[in-house]
């Protein structure tokens, strides 16, 4: 073999190794970028979950009030809750509540006193689930006010938010 042929072979080998290194570097860079995008998406989803939980906490349709004025925070009126459960599922209100809660499910569960008999202990006021999508659950303790007996019960407002 001539010296020039050997040199061409050497150049081809060097170029081959160089392109392999470039490809490996590119794959690695793509992995890092993908990881960063994933973590940014995760952050946005988590912030959205907090926003939805806060909107649910301060929903005027549920909050305890006296003479139309909100009396206290972290309190849900059971009578209002029973009405809201029906109202929020009505077809004409779907878009309004979707703008507010997007893909999520909001449940209110009575924890204390323990319910016996036929009384209801869980209310689902909004439910728009998304299949095969990661979800965040935010549980917020609340007082459930029974305006008939003028007593407070202990409950949990559970907001399940599905990522886009």
């Amino acid at each position, binding site marked *: 073999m001539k010296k020039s042929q050997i040199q061409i072979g050497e150049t081809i080998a060097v170029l081959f190794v160089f392109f392999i290194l470039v490809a490996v570097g590119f794959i690695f860079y793509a992995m890092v970028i993908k990881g960063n995008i994933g973590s940014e998406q995760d952050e946005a989803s988590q912030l959205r979950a907090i926003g939805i939980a806060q909107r649910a906490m301060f929903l005027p349709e549920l909050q305890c009030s006296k003479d139309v004025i909100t009396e206290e925070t972290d309190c849900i009126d059971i009578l209002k809750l029973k009405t809201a459960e029906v109202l929020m599922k009505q077809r004409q209100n779907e878009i309004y509540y979707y703008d507010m809660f997007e893909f999520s499910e909001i449940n209110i569960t009575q*924890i204390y006193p323990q319910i016996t008999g036929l009384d209801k202990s869980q209310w689902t006021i909004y439910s728009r689930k998304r299949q095969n999508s990661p979800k965040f659950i935010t549980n*917020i*303790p609340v007082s459930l006010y029974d305006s008939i007996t003028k007593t407070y019960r202990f409950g949990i407002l559970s907001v399940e938010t599905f990522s886009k």
Partner: protein
Amino acid sequence: MTNLHTKMKHKIAQMEILGLAIVVVLMLVAAIFVIRFSVFKEPADYRKGFVSSELASNMINAFLKTTAQDCSQLTMTELLQDCAQAQSIRCRGETPACSYVQAAAGSIFEKTLNKWNMRYEFKAYVDMDRPLIRLGEACRAEKKSRIFPIPISGATMQAKLDICG
């Protein structure tokens, strides 16, 4: 002379190969570090701060406002006040206020904080060293703490909830 020249050439080639090997090893080590810390890093929990602080304050507020079952429509705050003072109230005919509040708090925390695998410590006290009610275990590291003062005659009682983590 030619033999010495060939030997020198071999030595230089060996040193070049060794240099290349060192560069490759350094690049590999750097790549492993980058992969470890950027690609496989633990996902950050941005909700953690909000959830623990809301949980601690709402939990204690809602608990103290709750009306005790079968106990003359008294709230947990009123039962705690009796627990710290006269200890004259008997719920369901025989249970003293202190035991009643302890059992109610235990039942609520069991169905909430324990179920969600969250560690906590709940204390109600006038003198911090001698709590009247104590549930859970003291947090060893970071915690979100909420104290709710309850007025009693001649002093102030404190209801304190720490959520660990």
